[in-house]
């Protein structure tokens, strides 16, 4: 096996998995800030203003890490995937460039006023800036999902001398899988943030701190999850239908179906074995597969064996990751619905065991999000542009094994320590919590994301 190819795949998986955590969190947080600030403008409840300031600090730190790790991403395609860039850059490049133009520049422009302009501009102008930042994060999601969906379900292109050329931008941007994958990702980002908000609020309630503010947040998170988590399962099911239509080999892998046909069972758990082309220790529910995947008792689903071995994705990662994602999705619904029931009985915000369940679920969104992306990306293999350009043919031909090994080690070391510092800093911020902000603060002039949140930290100069 080509070492540079294997190491490049590992590296891309690592840097993109690290990076996506931060945008996913900030997509949700930006909209959460819009919601909080609108609520405050309407009610002028001081608690809400304190919460806006608190969550803005969390947003600032996460956004900063998203920016630095995002710069790395914008060079990865060229350094490690030069043939992908040269062959598909005509189509993917413009989509990414639109992300810079309509998202990055917009975010950079309005972020300064949002973070530091509270006392310099009117409340409505400030609110407008918060809305623009939120719109920027959603615009970024739009273009990234469009580019990635095009790689999953390419459309609107022609191939000349092995190079993709755009033929119809409408078809490229709104390619077949985009319509369902965009809402799936946006809802995933929102749920990720909702569980962070709910978990942090439960942490305060368990420690009897900021009780009123924490209750406000937990209520909002609970209602949101109770509605959106089931919605996400429906969208996820639609996404599955789309995969069945366009990427049957991916569907077979993520469900661990080797022999297709009608009356397919649903495998709850198994150890897929690529050597024997079968599942070991399989726990099957008869007709389950047909029912879930085709919405009929005996519907037909293709099996992995009907694809040549060279065209099959690896099975284990999509299979397990999919199960993790589904299990967490079900747990999310459960936590929220149990919460609604306990709320009616008046114990949702006092029951220690229930609050602890939110604490446990705090990282659930992140894990489900990563699992979902691993299903999508590993399941697309062996293709980088599905059915058209193999990953093995996309790697840079002129990079050495040693270079890629070096870069992989460096990125792992740098990101692990970065993650440690950011986590430590966020923890410090949580310990301070959503303290009361004086209604009129002195004019501050800095306009950088991470520099917010220094006050009340005690040990700064």
């Amino acid at each position: 096996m080509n070492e540079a190819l294997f190491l490049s795949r590992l590296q891309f998986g690592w840097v993109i998995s690290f990076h996506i955590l931060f945008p996913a969190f900030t997509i949700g947080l930006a909209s959460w800030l819009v919601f909080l600030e609108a609520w405050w403008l309407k009610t002028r409840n001081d608690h809400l203003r304190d919460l806006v300031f608190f969550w803005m600090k969390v947003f600032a730190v996460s956004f900063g890490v998203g920016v630095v790790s995002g710069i790395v991403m914008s060079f990865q395609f060229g350094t490690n995937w030069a043939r992908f860039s040269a062959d598909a850059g005509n189509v993917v490049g413009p989509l990414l460039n639109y992300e810079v133009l309509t998202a990055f520049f917009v975010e950079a422009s309005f972020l300064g006023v949002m973070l530091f302009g509270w006392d310099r501009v009117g409340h409505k102008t400030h609110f407008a800036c918060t809305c623009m930042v939120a719109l920027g994060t959603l615009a970024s999601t739009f273009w990234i999902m469009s580019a990635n969906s095009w790689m999953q379900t390419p459309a609107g292109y022609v191939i000349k001398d092995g190079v993709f050329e755009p033929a119809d931008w409408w078809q490229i941007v709104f390619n077949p899988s985009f319509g369902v994958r965009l809402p799936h990702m946006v809802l995933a980002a929102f749920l990720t943030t909702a569980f962070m908000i709910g978990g942090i609020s439960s942490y305060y309630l368990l420690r009897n701190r900021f009780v009123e503010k924490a209750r406000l947040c937990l209520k909002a998170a609970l209602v949101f999850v109770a509605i959106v988590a089931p919605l996400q399962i429906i969208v996820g099911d639609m996404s599955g239908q789309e995969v069945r239509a366009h990427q049957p080999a991916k569907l077979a892998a993520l469900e661990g179906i080797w022999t297709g046909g009608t009356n397919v069972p649903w495998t709850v758990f198994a150890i897929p074995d690529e050597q024997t082309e079968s599942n070991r220790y399989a726990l099957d529910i008869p007709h389950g597969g047909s029912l879930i995947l085709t919405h009929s008792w005996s519907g037909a689903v293709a099996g992995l064996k009907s694809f040549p071995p060279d065209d099959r994705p690896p099975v284990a990662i999509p299979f397990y990751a999919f199960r993790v994602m589904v299990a967490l999705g079900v747990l999310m619904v459960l936590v929220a619905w149990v919460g609604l029931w306990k709320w009616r009985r008046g114990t949702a915000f006092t029951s220690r065991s229930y609050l602890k369940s939110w604490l446990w679920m705090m990282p659930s969104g992140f894990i489900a999000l990563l699992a979902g992306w691993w299903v999508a990306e590993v399941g697309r293999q062996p293709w980088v542009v599905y059915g058209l350009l193999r990953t093995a043919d996309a790697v840079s031909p002129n990079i050495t094994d040693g270079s890629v090994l070096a870069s992989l080690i460096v990125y792992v070391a740098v990101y692990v320590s970065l993650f440690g510092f950011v986590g430590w800093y966020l923890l410090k911020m949580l310990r301070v919590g959503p303290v009361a902000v004086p209604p009129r603060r002195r004019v501050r002039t800095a306009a950088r994301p991470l520099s917010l949140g220094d006050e009340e930290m005690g040990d700064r100069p």
Partner: protein
Amino acid sequence: MTLAETLPVVWYFIIGFAVMMYVLLDGFVLGIGILTPFADDAAQRDHMMNTAAPIWDGNETWLVMGGAGLMAAFPKAYAVVLSSLYLPVLVMLVALISRGVSFEFRFKAAKSRVVWGFAFAAGSIVTAFMQGLILGALVEGMPLTGGKYIHATAFAWFSPFSVLTGVAVVFGYALLGATWLVLKTDGRVQRIAFDLTRPLMLAVIAFMLLVSAWLPFLDSNLMARWFTWPNFLYLSPVPLLTVLNAAALWVAVIRNREVAPFVLSLCFFVLGFIGLVVGIWPNIVPPSLTIWQAASPVQSQGFVLVGVVIMIPAVLAYTAYSYRIFRGKVAADAGYY
């Protein structure tokens, strides 16, 4: 002229503009980082960093714009350049991360402040050196075999010339940083910056001469345009302006002016950049990949051009506005943090 002929030209200048914006805007911030070791104490280092605190974040967006623009408009060049410069790009990105996060963590840390201060200076110096090295390697040229890639080598970019341009850019950014500090500070920090400006200016002029003298001896054919008649005549305003600019900068520094040195240093960079862009033309990857060969089709370049025409003027207007908000001297105890 057809669209297929003109669009690559338009995009050559768009990307050139984005890179120049990045070099000018982040150049002086990196320069501050390069100069922080010359501060007497931690308070002065804070003072230096505070002058750039409100504005440095947006600057990096121009770098991303340059990268994404290159991928959209000249995908072949994007692929060849970045994969050929694998290690320098890696080191530059890691140095940028180090610079960016230590800008922030330094003010949050209590015990580890020294470490973050070091990471800030080292990150800035390494970023500047790598950007210069990448520039030098690009100017030297990347020969393509069979119209596509050079064979796998890890260190093809390493040469005396690329090291020279790397060092030159460190000094160039340091000059931008010093003149920026003259403009934005007073007291002891301004004095330090004034004292550094003169030797830095001499060094930058020396490096400019050295690089220019080296260019005709490179294999890359680059700059051939500069030394053929009558091109030399038409292009002569650029070197003439550079000489005038150097003289004006000299006078401004001697007379302890505050605004002029920074503006003239920026002009120095712009003139050098124009000289380079003219020299590389019509190649995007010297010695032989032209902008038309590397260009994406009209549908790609045209599609993004619409967004550029709408968004970039708005971005420039906001950038000017935010610099206006933060105009004036930054006091030693400015409350950015």
